[in-house]
């Protein structure tokens, strides 16, 4: 471990202490994969706030913001406004009030306009008397959808269009023929001929107009398609080396036509001390799960040593965050071939280094997704799963049924080998972490008790807003930035556990949201989430008990 240069030291001393301090909360969760909504859970003053932001799928467009204040306080005012990384707080209009939703106490709703593509956020402002509390929830303002015209609208527009075409041709015919006749004068042969010529001219002109309009429309649609959010494509490959097997991830950024600044890979920043959080999940059975942290070789190439995973085809999800607050997930596939020296180690947990982890669980589909009637937590039934090390977890749910698009608190209670409440320790600054995957791989998200947003992005946005900087002209140099980040990462990696934890944790205050007296006897972890679409899902939870990371898998059907 070399000595840090001045930049690195400055970073550690000033900026990144604060950065990492708060990033300790941050476990990357901005999953663009099939889960566009952003959920935030936190405190504003004394009030618990649960917010759900549905970003526009077309930019410029309108986001829908729903906020739930479970305590339903009175005499408060709730407002929201869209704040861009590029424009800062100063370049943001006054906030719009969120209006209370009738018949749903404590729920507020509003619309926000997002006009530019790029890294942005929703600032929530809660005012009670003289007190004012603010929070920033990152969102990515990118067009993600391409729409067809609804049939009914198409029919109405076609009808009106046909009427306009016929009337316009009639106008041409009348203009050339009838309109220049003296009043009272009857239509003669010459006039009739002019009408015919007028009709022909009109038809040609209207035809040209329609043809031109169609060509223009097609060009606009093409342009829109170019602006449409394109995820980075990545290629993961299995590399055998003398000291073990490696995963090599190569990111292909050649398709990137828009967001050249906001999405630049040179401006990647560490989130919770790691540049990349990579999840490996065996396809189909979903029985193998690994969470690894690759190292950067250059801005497009990343490498990590693999734990002894069984052969098969794997989903690879790599979460990253940028200096602009833009966070996304790079999706790829990995094939692990059969190797002679590999033996299946069933149902045991191995910790790789101090941050990487992997686990095996039952394949999906061989266990009934039924509530266990014998298991009751706080009077509620649950779905129980056994965890490695004799621990167990119960997913507490009233009915075991979940609807797509509805916001839920996914509550898990953890028990030790004796069936007593397990003592949960802070793991990466949190009570726990969860990964949600739809069986077909079309939905992936990494969430934590504060919601589904990337706290790394949140921190980047807050820091930027504090500086008062706007625009894109004041970015640090690409190479300098990359070098500085690499040096900080190397410095952190070389630190002993306690020193690093202390630096990463910074002045973080660990907040638990489980203050319900009925749950005092339990160790609970809660994740707010809304399943974006119906289907079968597997959820992995990650908690830390007795200094060990424990992973458990649950299955659920969403209707």
């Amino acid at each position, binding site marked *: 471990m070399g000595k840090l240069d001045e930049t690195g030291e400055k970073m550690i001393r000033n900026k990144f202490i604060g950065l990492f301090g708060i990033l300790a909360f941050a476990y990357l969760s901005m999953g663009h994969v099939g889960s566009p909504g952003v959920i935030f859970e936190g405190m504003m003053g004394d009030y618990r706030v649960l917010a759900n932001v549905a970003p526009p799928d*077309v930019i410029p*467009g309108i986001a829908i913001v729903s906020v739930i204040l479970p305590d339903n306080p009175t005499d408060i005012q709730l407002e929201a406004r869209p704040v861009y990384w590029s424009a800062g707080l100063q370049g943001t209009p006054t906030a719009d009030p969120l209006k209370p939703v009738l018949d749903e106490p404590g729920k507020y709703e509003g619309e926000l306009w997002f006009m530019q593509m790029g890294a942005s956020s929703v600032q929530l402002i809660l005012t009670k008397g003289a007190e004012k509390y603010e929070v920033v929830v990152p969102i990515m303002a990118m067009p993600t959808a391409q*729409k067809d015209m609804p049939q009914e609208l198409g029919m109405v527009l076609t009808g009106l269009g046909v009427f306009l075409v016929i009337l316009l041709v*009639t*106008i041409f015919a009348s203009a*050339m023929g*009838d309109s*220049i006749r003296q009043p009272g004068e009857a239509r003669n042969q010459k006039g009739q001929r002019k009408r015919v010529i007028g009709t022909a001219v009109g038809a040609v002109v209207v035809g040209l107009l329609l043809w031109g309009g169609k060509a223009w429309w097609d060009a*606009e649609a093409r342009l*829109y398609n170019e602006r449409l959010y394109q995820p980075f494509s990545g290629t993961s490959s299995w590399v055998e080396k003398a000291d073990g097997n490696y995963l090599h991830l190569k990111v292909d950024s050649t398709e990137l036509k828009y967001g050249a600044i906001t999405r630049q890979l040179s401006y990647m920043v560490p989130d919770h001390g790691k540049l990349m959080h990579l999840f490996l999940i065996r396809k189909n059975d979903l029985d193998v799960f690994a969470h690894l942290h690759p190292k950067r070789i250059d801005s497009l190439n990343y490498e990590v040593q693999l734990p002894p995973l069984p052969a098969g085809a794997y989903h690879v999800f790599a979460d990253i965050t940028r200096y602009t607050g833009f966070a996304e997930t790079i999706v790829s596939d990995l094939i692990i071939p059969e190797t002679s020296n590999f033996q299946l180690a069933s149902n045991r947990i191995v910790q790789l280094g101090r941050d990487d982890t992997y686990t095996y669980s039952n394949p999906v589909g061989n266990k009934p997704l039924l509530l266990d009637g014998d298991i009751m937590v706080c009077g509620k039934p649950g779905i129980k799963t056994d965890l490695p090390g004799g621990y167990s977890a119960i997913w507490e749910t009233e009915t075991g049924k979940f609807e797509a698009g509805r916001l839920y608190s996914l509550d898990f209670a953890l028990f030790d080998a004796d069936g007593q409440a397990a003592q949960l320790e802070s793991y990466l600054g949190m009570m726990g972490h969860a990964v949600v995957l739809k069986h077909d791989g079309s939905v992936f998200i990494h969430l934590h008790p504060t919601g589904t947003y990337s706290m790394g992005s949140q921190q980047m946005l807050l820091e930027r807003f504090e500086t008062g900087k706007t625009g894109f002209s004041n970015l640090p140099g690409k190479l300098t930035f990359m070098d500085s980040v690499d040096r900080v990462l190397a410095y952190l990696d070389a630190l002993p556990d306690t020193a690093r934890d202390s630096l990463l944790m910074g002045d973080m205050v660990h907040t638990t949201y489980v203050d319900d007296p009925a749950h005092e006897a339990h160790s609970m972890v809660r994740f707010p989430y809304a399943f974006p679409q119906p289907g079968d899902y597997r959820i992995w939870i990650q908690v830390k008990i007795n200094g060990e990371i424990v992973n458990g898998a649950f299955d659920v059907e969403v209707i």
Partner: protein
Amino acid sequence: MKTYAITAVLTEEKVASDVKESTRLIPIYVYASVFASLCIVIGLIWDISWHMSVGRDGLFSPPHIAIYVGALIAGVFSGIKVLKTSFWSSTEEKSQAIRFWGIFHGSLGAMFCIWGAFAMLTSAPFDDWWHNTYGLDVQILSPPHVLLGLGMIMIQFGAMISVTALQNRLKDAVTAKAGLHLQWMFALTAGILLTMVYVLVSQYFWTFRMHGVLMYQIAALAFPLFMVSVTYAAPYPWACTKMAASYTFIMAAMVWILPFFPAEPLLSPIYNFITHMQPYHFPVLLIVPAIGIDLVLMRSKKMNKWLLAGLLAVVFLLLFVPAQWYFAEFLQTEAARGWFFGRSSWAYMTPPDSFIRYNFHPEYVDTGWSLVKGLLIALPIAAISSRVGLSWGNWMKQVKR
């Protein structure tokens, strides 16, 4: 509305027998379509200013209401007029209108207005779908907006044709007062049409582009067509100057009036922190070539049309290019930043220290040979535009229904 329509018809009948009551000879629906036309153009410039100042708008923003009121008045008055003539009028009245689709009778102006109103109506759901599919307004020119713009232009053209037809039909059978009314209504409707055409091409007319030939080529394409046709069709002198004066006054009045209203940007990002409405462009000096066009047509109307078109093109460019070129230089100076020229106007989303705010954009500056070459290209463009204008004017002169 119905009462008005009936009044209009009654006045027409009355007028036929009593020429002395000639100021009322002008049917109400003609006044209505001129008023509608004015509403639309004011609403349009106001809307652009709204987008520069406030940004966010809804279906019922004040400028939109002005535009819809215009469309509604034009569509309803013309529609009722056509239905009235078709189903509740004497054969004599029908014989003054155009018969179409077997059952309808209406004037050409009314047909234009109805087309315009329906085009505007069609553009609304089309535009809504467009926004949901490709994004909210960030451009003046999009297919649904062009449909809307065509609708507006058709209404304005319909208003102008209504006045022209009346003018052509009545000829000398009007009192001086009614004649004057018609003259000014014609000048106003023509000026509104010119304003509308200007707005559609105005993205080439920002001051920072005024030392580039492209702007002058666009001007050569768009303006002689309308200015020449109106002057050629008008039965009185100085029609083009009056038309250009109307355009100048409408555009300038918006520059003077809009800043009186407070405005706050409601969309992010905001780079220019404004507190009142930012007006759109100060009018370009079309009034200068308009005088030239009038003088040429007063003297040489009978000349060969191709030669005449060439002459008009030369006059248009010779007068417009230097006038606007040097005026543009003035517009870049501190002196132009007061209320009169409104040059301080700057949209909220553009940084106030942008170097093109009070400078010509180097990419759009032509000097030397590139300027000469550009203007030589503009000349045939202006000639063709003028030639089409002459034919069109000739046709307008004959419209009587």
